[in-house]
């Protein structure tokens, strides 16, 4: 039996989630006395994954643009070549695009949003976040092949040295049924999915002209920026920043909400964040019941002071 981890890369580097997926796989491999193998696309520094317990890495080299179906087919083929039985992946948009396809192709059961190490290994039972973070469900995977999709920032990253063998695999030229053209947003911008800190603004900020408060705070913290639903519906901010039950999910280490009331639909989407801070002038705002730290005050006064304080803190 072999456990295979899908290690996502970005511009040739392993994403942070790849290290987390490896750490999870290593622990599971130790407990089940299995081997841990990895598959990556176009990794420039494959040896970097050695620290996280991967024993063999198949580095697929292709200049084919990302296309879920072709990538899924390559992953399935490589998984079978490695004689894998359990596939572990992260929760990025790309991985969630690819793995439903893999699941059908391998006839493998698949659990997404897994937040913990399995509560039972045989049978395999996984704790998943459900009801958009309003509850948990324990799901048993019953097929021979299985896929676990773990949520970012849920398990942690642990080092565990192993001997690593790297094999390049150059597939024959791929054919796509679709043309894909990627439109990158601002290169500097941190994505909500990968961010450790997210700063979010709500209707309390009164208008798009005041978003420098959110942006400046995010900049000094190295954070991604987000917003509540009405803010994106009114066009103050792009839809890609809308977080919550009907927007993007957030599972960061720190979530700072400014002028957001904390409606149940907003909280549902961001609840998986570890530490929540609210800045709101209404002490009755429901967000105070969900937050770890709160400041009751006018955002237009509090946030500039916070930015100043952080500047001093960072230069200490």
């Amino acid at each position, binding site marked *: 039996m072999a456990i295979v981890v899908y290690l996502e890369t970005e511009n040739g580097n392993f994403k942070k989630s790849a290290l987390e997926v490896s750490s999870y796989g290593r622990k599971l491999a130790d407990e089940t006395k299995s081997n841990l193998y990895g598959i990556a696309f176009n990794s420039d520094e494959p040896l970097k994954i050695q620290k996280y317990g991967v024993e063999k890495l198949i580095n697929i080299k292709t200049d084919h643009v990302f296309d*879920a179906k072709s990538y899924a087919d390559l992953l399935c083929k490589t998984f079978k070549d490695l004689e894998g039985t359990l596939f572990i992946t992260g929760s990025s*948009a*790309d991985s*969630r*695009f690819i*793995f*439903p*396809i893999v*699941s*059908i192709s391998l006839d493998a*059961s*698949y*659990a*997404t949003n897994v937040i913990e190490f399995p509560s039972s290994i045989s049978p395999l*039972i996984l704790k998943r*976040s*459900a*009801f958009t973070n*309003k*509850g*948990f*469900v*324990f799901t*048993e995977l*019953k*097929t021979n092949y299985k896929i676990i999709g773990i949520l970012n920032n849920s398990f942690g990253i642990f080092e565990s040295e192993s001997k690593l063998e790297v094999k390049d695999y150059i597939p024959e030229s791929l054919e796509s*049924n*679709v*043309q*894909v*053209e*990627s*439109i*990158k947003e601002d290169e500097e911008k941190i*994505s909500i999915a990968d961010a450790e*800190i997210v700063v979010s603004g709500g209707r309390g900020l009164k208008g798009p002209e005041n978003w420098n408060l959110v942006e400046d705070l995010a900049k000094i913290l190295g954070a991604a920026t987000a917003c509540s*639903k009405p803010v994106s*519906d009114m066009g103050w901010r792009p839809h*890609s920043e809308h977080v919550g*039950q*009907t*927007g993007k999910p957030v599972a960061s280490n*720190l979530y700072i909400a400014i002028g957001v009331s904390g409606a*149940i*639909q907003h909280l549902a989407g961001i*609840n998986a964040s*570890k*530490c929540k801070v609210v800045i709101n002038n209404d002490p009755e705002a429901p967000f105070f*019941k969900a937050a*770890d*730290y*709160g*400041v009751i*005050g006018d955002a237009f006064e*509090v946030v500039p*002071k*916070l930015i100043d*304080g*952080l500047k001093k*803190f960072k230069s200490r």
Partner: protein
Amino acid sequence: MKVLVCISSVPDTTSKINFIKNETQFDKSGVQYIINPNDEFGLTRAIWLKEKESCEVHAICVGGIDTDPILRKALAIGADQAFRVDINPMDANQVAREISDFIKDKEYNLIIAGRESIDYNGGMVPGMIATLINANYVSNCVSLDVDQSNFKATRETDGGKEEISGILPLVIGGQKGLVEESDLIIPNMRGIMMSRKKPLTIIEAKFQKLQTKTVKYEKLPPKGEVKLVNPENINDLIDLLHNEAKVI
């Protein structure tokens, strides 16, 4: 053109989530059910297609008799026909197989599902259907244009967007952006009256074999009290985030 919109019936977004029978069952009492929000954007997008070209829109739900009101609402919004596969679905694979089996021989050009349902958040059904029926697939779809044989869609990625184009048939996992919130069609009296005359066909379920099993549920752990920081001493917040929460 024939369009199929896959609709999931989910607890209203304001629902309190509770479990019963020793946390082995979701507590449906007092819960209102709605069309899954991601599916609702797709449904309105489908109705718009009808206005542009001759196009028939069907809605399908895999669910028990309690999901009929959701399908009636889809008909009131403008779908021409509805279908219900009569089984209480237990996992994504089962839903995808039932819908794919239904699609077989029916020559749908476009299948619109939601990015994910807001109850179990699996996000797998559209990709599974696409694979089962061998159609093109676009997840996190925020805009869509089609003509008789081609599509051009925009997919939201973690760090930006992608334009994907190709030939139909296509399956999408849709979300807000397909249409705006303010564009969502709200059924009017005429729509509601007409929906009663439109066909809602019950289909027998075929796939009983499950790949997964729900073992139990768990509620969120109780939340501790919020720690308030005086806005005059904002450095206290920085201190707490650094030393206590260790997040900066």
